[in-house]
């Protein structure tokens, strides 16, 4: 079902006219209310009034994660705090998450886009949505929740964790739509099997999965084990949260970007040159309707391509392909963003540890497992096993506290970490996504 038929199936020409008008408004607004953007535009010698067509967008400077961090916590907000009704923060940044704000109207827009996304994924009024995305600062849980309510479905705000209880709820409440990370969906299937509950006996029809990279192979596995149709959802808190792009269950071939609210661009991550449709590169977003936290040409670091071909579902919005990687070294561990440098600073802050480390990511029982190998130095070494084990625990605890991700810490011998061409290999990702 198409939730917002007028906008979602709008002819390209009309859509582009709306985009240009909204873009001009957004640029004028950030220029007058966010010093960062005013300085950036001035430095590039551009005024909002110079933007006369959508192609002029490429003259505007990019915004990066670093820019957002430099303006921590609220300096990127384009409205006074009086008008901000919600604050979220991105996961996993040592001491300094990226903070985003929403006005009441932003929450309304987000809810509407999430309702569109859930409808594209097969949900409608009368459905019961089992929402196993985490609730909290993370945008996943609340984003889906508001969209489900807007759609008129019944939402079970079960959040993450306590999997056995979730299986009982799935059995007793009979939800028809599952929303979670793809790895958690597979974990649910396994726990259900352990306690003797078959997904064939449950009422699920569709699942909307995202917040971490996954593959076509994983989709087949989820569909088989959970006996439902699985679609991919995309979002990031810096741009809004979940509901920026969604796969339709009819096509299951790429995610429609809600272009009446966001302009997607693909650029070469090295040269930053704009790439044509079909070519792979880094995804860049400009928000068109956000009030509290507009973003202009925000570099997501996600690698994808755009496909403008018409879709069998009738939506006219361009489709992005599955995110296949990153243009930086960020890892997504169970939905939490982790940069190797963050682990490094935890190690440096943990007394006496030298930052010779390696991150190894595996997928065990369908859950991401992060192992941090740390080389033992003469200063950290002690002849007592309990001293070394307590060091491992201390590092693990600090990583959990600062990054919000569980990690196994494993002490290794000096030079126990592979070095290629004299440079340590910092990340080994064995997940084969």
């Amino acid at each position, binding site marked *: 079902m198409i939730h917002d038929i007028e906008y979602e199936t709008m002819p390209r020409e009309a859509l582009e006219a709306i985009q240009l008008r909204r873009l001009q408004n957004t640029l004028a607004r950030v220029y007058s209310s966010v010093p960062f953007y005013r300085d950036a535009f001035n430095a590039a010698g551009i005024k909002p009034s110079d933007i006369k067509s959508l192609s002029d967008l490429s003259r505007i400077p990019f915004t990066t994660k670093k820019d957002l961090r430099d303006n921590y916590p609220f300096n990127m907000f384009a409205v006074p705090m009086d008008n901000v009704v919600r604050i979220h923060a991105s996961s996993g940044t040592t001491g300094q998450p990226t903070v985003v704000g929403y006005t009441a109207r932003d929450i309304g827009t987000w809810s509407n886009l999430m309702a569109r996304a859930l409808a594209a994924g097969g949900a409608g009024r009368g459905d019961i949505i089992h929402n196993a995305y985490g609730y909290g600062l993370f945008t996943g849980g609340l984003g889906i929740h508001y969209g489900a309510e807007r759609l008129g479905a019944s939402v079970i705000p079960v959040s993450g964790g306590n999997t056995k209880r979730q299986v009982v709820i799935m059995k007793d409440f009979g939800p028809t739509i599952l929303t979670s990370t793809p790895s958690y969906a597979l974990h649910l299937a396994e726990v259900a099997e352990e306690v003797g509950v078959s997904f064939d006996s449950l009422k699920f029809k569709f699942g909307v999965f995202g917040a971490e990279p996954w593959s076509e192979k994983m989709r087949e596995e989820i569909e088989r084990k959970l006996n439902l149709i699985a679609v991919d959802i995309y979002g990031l808190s810096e741009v809004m949260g979940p509901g920026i792009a969604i796969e339709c269950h009819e096509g299951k071939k790429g995610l429609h970007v809600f272009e009446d609210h966001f302009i997607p661009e693909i650029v070469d991550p090295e040269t930053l040159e704009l790439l044509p449709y079909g070519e792979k590169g880094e995804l860049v977003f400009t928000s068109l309707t956000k009030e509290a936290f507009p973003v202009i040409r925000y570099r997501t670091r996600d690698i994808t391509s755009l496909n403008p071909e018409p879709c069998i579902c009738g939506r006219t919005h361009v489709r992005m392909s599955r995110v296949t990687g990153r243009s930086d070294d960020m890892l997504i561990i169970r939905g939490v963003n982790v940069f190797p440098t963050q682990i490094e600073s935890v190690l440096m802050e943990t007394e006496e540890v030298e930052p010779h480390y390696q991150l190894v990511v595996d997928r065990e029982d369908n859950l991401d497992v992060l192992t941090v190998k740390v080389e033992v130095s*003469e200063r950290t070494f*002690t*002849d007592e*096993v309990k001293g*070394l084990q307590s060091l491992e625990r201390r590092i693990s605890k600090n990583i959990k506290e600062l990054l919000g991700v569980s990690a196994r810490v*494993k*002490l290794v*011998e000096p030079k*126990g970490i592979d070095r290629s061409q004299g440079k340590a290999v910092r990340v080994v990702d064995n997940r084969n996504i």
Partner: protein
Amino acid sequence: MKVEQISVFLENKSGRLSEVTAILAESEVNIRALALADTSDFGVLRLIVDDTENARKALKNNGFTVGKTNVIAVEVPDQPGGLHHILTLFYKADINVEYMYAFVRSSGDNAVMIFRIEKEEEAIRLLEKNGVSVIDGQRLYSI
């Protein structure tokens, strides 16, 4: 009255222990006593050798993490209750034994036990007061 012990960090990988013994053999270091403590991921090898400095350098040069700690060597009567008597002395004096292991050779009629103790000065005084013989490093290395 203290004895120097070296300890070596080892990953649980096959062949690591024999690499240590090979390095020591090449450096003509004689192992007098050894004990291995291990977890699922790593082990700590503790060694008493006849030439601590030489052993330590050789291992370090080969990329091992090596530590040096003091332990005490105690003569224990080689008869039932011999060790128990000494442990009882520690227990009553509230002296905690971090770990202990047996020395390979005996000292006359007595066995030799190696103790790793935090309060080592206090432990040595206690043992001597109770007539228990503590062996110093120089003598131990040449037993």
